[in-house]
């Protein structure tokens, strides 16, 4: 028995090593060969032997063979990991929802590890009665469930001047979409009673940056949530545990994590994240501020540089994501020839308001080189612009709000690369 288990473990280890190599090799395209001893007519080890019992894996995680599907960062981008970003592996996901453990991270002074017993939210300023809430208080309030995308304003920011990063994880991975559970901020404001002069709110985090953003009162009363769950679970520490702001359709920097304080005021605060950062510098040296809404955007997630095709021709499914901070996605078009001709893709799964929407385009690939693009259109009629159109009106110094159309070049060997085209 012991011997058998030992040999099984050895085999498993050997299998993992092989699997790992094959995954690494997948960047060069071509089907995975695997181990013939596990394939018919042979009967693999996992069929002959008992596997692990229940609760050995008391909190489940993906198969060992998926271990490369992780958040990744780009070391040269930032000065330290505490003030940096990691990217969602969009190329390896499907459907509209992002798994909690893969949601991109952006911290300004690292992750605050907040003890829920000590969590407090203070609401004060231009209110009739300043209030302090515990986590239990917030959980006692009437709650709602809403799926929303959360996109960093700097998503695709490295691509303003040209193609830089080979992979949609890096070019578009500062976006995720989860189902939030939380309390409308209006409920809390009604509890405190806002004074007639009130026009703006300041949201402040409990992290070591005490991250702040000014929020117009009208948005706060419209659809902002004080959220504590993502996809049913309590928020993860890196996403603001135990409580964060959810500002539907607006740039992620405003979705203050580890939310500790809301001050009601009559004017914006002009803090660091809404002056020095998150303002959009135009070609003439002037800067657009309060650019909250994330405009319609899309990206083909497969095939893409990290998700090459493993076949040489034939039936092919092109898959991608589209989203709009202005409402629901109305339509997504796909081009195989660099924007000369377009076909309408098929939206599949729920088309939620201000959420990631999955699209597919199925076609018979003739094996020739293609220039793949996707173009999102939302219910307001906004059509995602080409990079050239966007640069024409914004220049290339904006950093933020790059929603230009992405081009992937699919090569005859199935490899894909990030390119700029004329």
């Amino acid at each position, binding site marked *: 028995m012991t011997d058998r288990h030992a040999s099984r473990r050895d085999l498993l280890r050997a299998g993992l090593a092989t699997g790992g190599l094959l995954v690494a090799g997948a960047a060069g395209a071509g089907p995975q060969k695997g181990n013939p001893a596990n394939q018919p007519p042979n009967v693999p080890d996992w069929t002959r032997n008992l596997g692990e019992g229940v609760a050995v894996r008391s909190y489940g995680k993906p198969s060992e063979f998926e271990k490369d599907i992780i958040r990744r*960062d780009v070391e040269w*981008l930032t000065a330290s990991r505490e003030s940096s970003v990691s990217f969602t592996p969009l190329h390896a996901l499907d459907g509209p929802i992002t798994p909690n453990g893969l949601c991109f991270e952006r911290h300004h002074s690292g992750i605050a590890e907040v003890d829920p017993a000590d969590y407090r939210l203070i609401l004060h300023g231009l209110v009739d009665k300043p209030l302090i*809430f515990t986590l239990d208080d917030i959980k006692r309030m009437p709650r709602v469930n809403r799926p929303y995308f959360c996109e960093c304003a700097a998503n695709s920011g490295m691509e303003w001047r040209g193609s830089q990063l080979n992979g949609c994880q890096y070019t578009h991975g500062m976006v995720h979409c989860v189902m939030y559970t939380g309390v409308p901020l209006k409920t809390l404001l009604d509890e405190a009673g806002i004074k007639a002069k009130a026009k703006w709110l300041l949201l402040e985090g409990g992290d070591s940056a005490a991250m702040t953003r000014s929020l117009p009162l009208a948005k706060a009363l419209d659809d902002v949530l004080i959220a504590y769950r993502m996809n049913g679970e309590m928020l993860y520490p890196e996403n603001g545990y135990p409580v964060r702001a959810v500002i539907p359709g607006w740039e992620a920097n405003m979705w203050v994590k580890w939310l500790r304080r809301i001050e009601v005021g009559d004017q914006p*605060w002009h803090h660091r994240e809404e002056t020095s950062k998150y303002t959009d510098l135009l070609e003439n040296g002037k800067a657009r*501020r309060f650019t909250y809404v994330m405009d319609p955007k899309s990206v083909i997630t497969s095939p893409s*540089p990290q998700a090459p095709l493993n076949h040489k021709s034939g039936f092919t499914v092109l898959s991608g994501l589209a989203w709009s901070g202005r409402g629901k996605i109305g339509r997504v078009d796909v081009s195989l020839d660099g924007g000369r*001709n*377009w076909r309408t893709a098929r939206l599949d799964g729920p088309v939620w308001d201000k959420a990631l929407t999955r699209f597919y385009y199925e076609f018979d690939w003739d094996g020739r080189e293609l220039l793949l693009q996707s173009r999102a259109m939302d219910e307001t009629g906004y059509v995602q612009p080409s990079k050239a159109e966007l640069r024409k009106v914004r220049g290339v110094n904006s950093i933020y709000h790059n929603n230009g159309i992405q081009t992937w070049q699919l090569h005859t060997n199935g490899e894909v690369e990030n390119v700029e085209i004329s």
Partner: protein
Amino acid sequence: MSKSRETCRGLSFLPLLAAACLICLACVAAFGAAFASEKKLDIGREATAEEIAGWDIDIRPDGHGLPVGRGTVKQGEPLYVERCAACHGEFGESAGRWPILSGGNGTLASHDPVKSVGSYWPYASTIIDYIRRAMPFGASQTLTNDELYAITAYVLFLNDIVTSEDFELSDKNFRTIKLPNEPNFFDDDREVAEKAFWRTDPCMSNCISGDAVVTGRAKVIDVTPDPGTGPKVE
């Protein structure tokens, strides 16, 4: 309430109880109406002035939130050198990829804009607010109010916003400090300026003449992290 609803569902095939069910539904509607009204939940308690004061650290351009205190450029220099210069550079020029604080005047419309306190930031209050809440990096909210004013004064000096080493910044004179780039910010006008992006009928065929030509490749720049490698653990 949910209990009575279940009872209704389970027995609703009986006509008599079906009538009772309607009553139940009426109850639900009544509850819903009460819920939708402005009636307070009475959850949470009044925050004390002391609790608020401990966390209320924000400062606005109009002076709202400025703590009582003062400090000179001269007093700020050694503090800056000790607490700030390792990342921001001795003259605010930045070390490595840490944020730059000074220089860059006249570069905003160039191909290489430098966004420093002096060249870009619209309000001086943003400096003192940010230092107060987030600096020094890794030791936030440890500076005294006088130190805040002294370091802020020194940063203003590095940017030639104040020019005398004897200049003393305080909650009394703070509002007199103006940064030169303030007029160059304007509110989001994308819905007007970029109105052309709203198109009812986007082009579907022969949209651009001639074949597409590849003009740039990410692989030429070669800055993408290697596949298969996880983040380094430090």
